[in-house]
């Protein structure tokens, strides 16, 4: 079996390794495929579908699809951009995302994706669902208003921290992040040093009393759009 696999993304020749996902092979080649639930070091999940690409004409999640020889991948096309914009739009209206005072602003992957895709305001109506805030833990809090159900915290806690503090409950619109305790986060074994405490791409699981310590202008996405750190490595 060959140790490299050749395929194309938007016509560009890419070399991947056997077993590697399209998203990771693209990333190694300096091609950014937008993503939200993917996090390096955690098992792929395929939940958010933001990384959806066309593989030989069929939609696939790039974070779960492994590379194959001769694969023709369409990533950054008008059609896929419109598809992703719709997905991000829907994530915004399903939750209660108030970027203007959210402490994650400037460091938030959802917000950064919206900026990258030029979303100034959602086109769908807001749902204004009631969501719970859990401040019971001494060092970390959950604001479910901002949760996008990416499951990063679930995987980080289970697979990296070995604790299984978080999991999903409910289905459809009622799906939410629950904690492994009778009632509240403060009753779990979560520690502020856990991977799960820093895995959240949005402002849903946040370390307490950090707030706005990083000034505007020095935040992650203040100057360059999300993904540019990958694109800047392109040969």
């Amino acid at each position: 079996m060959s140790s490299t696999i050749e395929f194309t993304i938007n016509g560009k020749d890419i070399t991947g390794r056997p077993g590697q996902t399209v998203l990771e092979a693209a990333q190694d080649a300096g091609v950014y495929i937008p993503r939200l639930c993917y996090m390096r070091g955690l098992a792929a999940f395929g939940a958010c579908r933001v990384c959806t690409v066309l593989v030989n004409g069929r939609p696939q999640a790039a974070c779960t699809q492994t590379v194959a020889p001769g694969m023709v991948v369409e990533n950054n096309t008008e059609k896929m951009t419109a598809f992703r914009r719709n997905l991000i739009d829907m994530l915004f209206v399903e939750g209660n995302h108030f970027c203007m005072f959210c402490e994650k602003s400037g460091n938030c992957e959802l917000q950064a994706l919206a900026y990258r895709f030029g979303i100034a305001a959602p086109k769908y109506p807001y749902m204004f669902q009631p969501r719970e805030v859990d401040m019971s833990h001494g060092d970390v809090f959950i604001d479910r208003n901002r949760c996008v159900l990416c499951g990063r915290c679930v995987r980080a806690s289970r697979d990296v921290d070995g604790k299984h503090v978080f999991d999903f409950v409910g289905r459809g619109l009622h799906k939410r992040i629950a904690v492994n305790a009778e009632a509240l986060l403060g009753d779990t074994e979560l520690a502020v040093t856990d991977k799960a405490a820093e895995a959240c791409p949005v402002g849903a699981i946040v370390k307490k009393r950090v707030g706005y310590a990083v000034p505007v202008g020095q935040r992650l996405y203040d100057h360059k759009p999300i993904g540019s750190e990958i694109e800047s490595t392109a040969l």
Partner: protein
Amino acid sequence: MVANTNGFKRIAIEPVTRVEGHGKVTLLLDEQNRVHQARLHIVEFRGFERFILGRPFWEVPVLVQRLCGICPVSHHLAAAKAMDRIVGGEKLTPTAEKMRRLMHYGQFFQSHALHFFHLVSPDILFGGIEDPFAGFSADPALRNVIAVAAKFPELAVQGVMMRKYGQEVILRTAGKKIHGTGAIPGGINKNLTIAERDFLLKDVEQMIKWSHGALKIAKDYTVKHLTKLAPFGSFDSSHMSLIRADGAMDLYHGGLRAITADGKKIFDHVDYQKYTDYIAEEVRPWSYMKFPFIKSIGPENGWYRVGPLARLNTADFIDTPAAEAARKEFMAVTKGKPNNVSMAYHWARMIELLHSIEKIRELLNDKDLQGQDLVTRGQRREETVGLIEAPRGTLFHHYRVDKHDQVTMANLIVSTTNNNEPMNRAVQKVAQDHLSGKKEITEGLLNHIEVVIRAYDPCLSCATHALGQMPLVVELVDAAGNLVDRKTKGG
């Protein structure tokens, strides 16, 4: 107070123009157009005190500033001062306190410039040389900032550039020109770089020069027409503000001082953590805005004024030379006694404009702004009060925070709320003196009422008038409630 409003004609000025936010004035007139009641209503309801409940306390300084787009820094800093005490960090490092002060003076500068040039200048610049009221009734098509720009282009440019300069100061201290994040519990999140300092220093002398010019316009207008302006919407009242320990005007911090209309101290250097021992709020059924009063005097007569006029009256001195010289001239008019003239607010405001820019220059030359020590922490508390002098007057933020870091109680007394009763008195006075008994209530006469409201620079919240199209509807309704006359302008 009119017990039974039946049998009177009602005129509504809605909305009041060239103020921040939405308000309306209602007048009740009898058959001879004599005014029986005049009220300023604040028709907005914002709900901030409710929807910050349950939020993390460090979020509050960033969240509550959304109350306003004109002076958000005031809310940002009042809340930050409150939250300093929650983390036990109220003794700020020199860098943190000076950065906050710089942000605050930047805001005073831009807010006062905006008010004077954009909102007020049309009323006073188009007046006849001999008649201070002539501008109030000038053609409404001219009575706006666009007309000012056409007739006094140099002045209009100064207004725009001064506001811009203030916003540049805010940008470099808060991170954004509007709704930044600079002040955090116990300190600040950035210092001022040398490049930022030099950028601001570049224009500071020009700003000082222009501030002197604006002050001269306000002073000359007031002094020249003092005899006529003195009774215009004026009345005796108490005055209140924060004051520095040595009696100097201090816009950022101090103790509370209240004085009577003739200058006697009601209380002095009061620790504002105990403000509820001194100030209470009354609710009246016809307004969303509460009526604060000094407890020891009672709800009937305990109301007071805040803002530039009150601060000039309460201060023993100002600690910057040009503003202090201007203060002395201001106080000389009333022979050292408190000035109770509503229209003198403009003069007082321009003295503060000058003071702010002098303070900005002083701070920019202070090396503490390049310090690295930004945040302090200490003994945790659960209840806290943060006070600041906002451009429009004393601003109160009162919170309780539980052990889980969640806000459980919030009470805000904003500057304009403190001036609620005074503004109502002013409206009443102008209505009585200038409208009552007149055969025809003209648009120009109604603008007299708006003029006196503007003197107080109320922040009814975040809106300004549409340029040149001030939407004003006045309805004359007879005793039976039938519409007998309706006048509109703009809109």
